[in-house]
């Protein structure tokens, strides 16, 4: 029985490695038989190292990543301020909520990508439209989570604050907002991965730099290796961003398990 268990455990440890190996072998087989359609793993690696040193459209791979990240970053500063403020207003002030929330509710169902044509008409094709798209794409989760966080606060905490003599302003800034930080951070997490997707989409439609631009360039020149390098890059950056936010979450809400 124990031996059986041990054998199983060993099997489970190696299974992920086996599955990766299978994928790589399968890939190599397919690319060996259709070299024009699917580049080999070596080709992809070579494309990647080439892109690291040789600029394409004025920037190396790191330059393009930085261009995209900068857009997300700028939009995010705005999203965090405006989004949290809106969410707090929705959650705390009855009149503001009843007046403005219905409009927000109508707009929030329009996917951010559907804003791209209109935003390009408004802001042209410079940096501003991409930042605006990221802003639109990432503000909804921040507002919704802040709103839900404030609304669902344990009544007990509010009452306790009141009993201890807090005024309304103190209740908001010293009780309600701190209590909803976990929810707000969860919203920011969703928003960041949404924002990263939006920047890629916006760059795919109009841009001269950024990973979204790079991937479309790959498509236009039939450079499949470049496309795959970009896809992997986009995935890796996305994972790193969520790792970073997980860290921030742990540091900023140490009382949560």
């Amino acid at each position, binding site marked *: 029985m124990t031996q059986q268990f041990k054998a199983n455990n060993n099997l489970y440890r190696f299974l992920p490695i086996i599955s*990766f190996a299978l994928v790589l072998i399968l890939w190599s087989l397919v690319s060996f038989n259709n070299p024009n359609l699917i580049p080999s793993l070596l080709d992809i690696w070579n494309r990647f190292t080439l892109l690291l040193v040789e600029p394409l459209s004025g920037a190396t791979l790191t330059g393009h990543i930085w261009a995209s990240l900068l857009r997300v970053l700028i939009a995010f500063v705005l999203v965090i301020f405006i989004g949290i403020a809106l969410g707090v207003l929705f959650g705390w002030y009855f009149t503001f909520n009843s007046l403005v929330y219905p409009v927000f509710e109508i707009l929030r*169902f329009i*996917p951010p990508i*559907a804003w791209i044509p209109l935003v390009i008409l408004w802001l042209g094709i410079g940096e501003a439209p991409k930042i605006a798209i990221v802003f639109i794409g990432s503000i909804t989760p921040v507002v919704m989570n802040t709103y839900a966080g404030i609304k669902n606060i344990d009544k007990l905490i509010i009452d306790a604050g009141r009993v201890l003599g807090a005024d309304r302003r103190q209740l908001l800034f010293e009780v309600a907002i701190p209590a909803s930080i976990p929810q707000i951070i969860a919203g920011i997490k969703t928003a960041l991965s949404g924002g990263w997707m939006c920047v*890629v989409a916006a760059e795919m439609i109009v841009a001269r730099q950024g990973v979204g631009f790079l991937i479309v360039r790959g*498509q236009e020149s039939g450079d499949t290796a470049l496309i795959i390098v970009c896809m992997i890059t*986009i995935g890796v950056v996305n994972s790193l961003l969520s790792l970073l936010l997980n860290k921030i979450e742990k540091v900023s809400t140490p009382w949560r398990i």
Partner: protein
Amino acid sequence: MIGKNRRTKIILGIIGIISFLLIWQFVVDFEIVSSRTLASPIEVYQAFVVKLSEKAPDGATLGQHTLASLKLALTGFVVAIIVGVPLGLVMGYYKFADKLIMPIFELLRPIPAIAWIPLTILLLGIGFEAKVFLIFLSAFVPCVINSYLGIKLTDPTLINVSKTFGASDWDIFTKICIPSSSNMVFSGVTISLSNAWTTLVAAEMLASTRGLGYMIQLGRTFIRPDIIIVGMLTIGAIGAVIAYGLGMIQDKVAPWREEE
């Protein structure tokens, strides 16, 4: 008291929406924003009525575009459910499948469906299959993840009780784990559908000859903000109907679920 509060809320809401529309109308009327880049609500309404029967300038009426988009989104969505939910359930219950498939899945998951568009176009072209594949990709992930988590979160007490009463492995899987995960599965499906709808717009904007995404993209080319806004509102309205519809179905199917 609550009734009165509710009435105030509704009245204020209507005032809010009306003032939003009025401000929008004024902004266009007084040329604060050029009418070449923003259409007023009245123009949008007129464009909507015209678009219902008129094919110009993008080759199809609003109804035809909507139908094309819905057909695409639903096909990709249904395939994603058929493949994704069973896969997630099996991965959640059988460790072998979990260890074999999960690593690859985790590797592919961070790549948004939009980033798959160029490769898909090169390999599959810009036809129906290509777009269904993209929508499938975006809808597939939440189906798998939620089904997987649903199984993993099954109350161990339930499993132990059924083991004590001599249930087989298969019985536990089908009669305990799957029913208890149904809520998670359902919310996964809900997320899938809204993902599918977003990806659809992107796919149609980059590669299509029909559909709502194509319509707004052409609206930009022709500098017709009224058509763009009609398209955006249609996309939003259908998204909202889908979201509320699924919410209602969920209440019917799983009425025991806890209110959030």
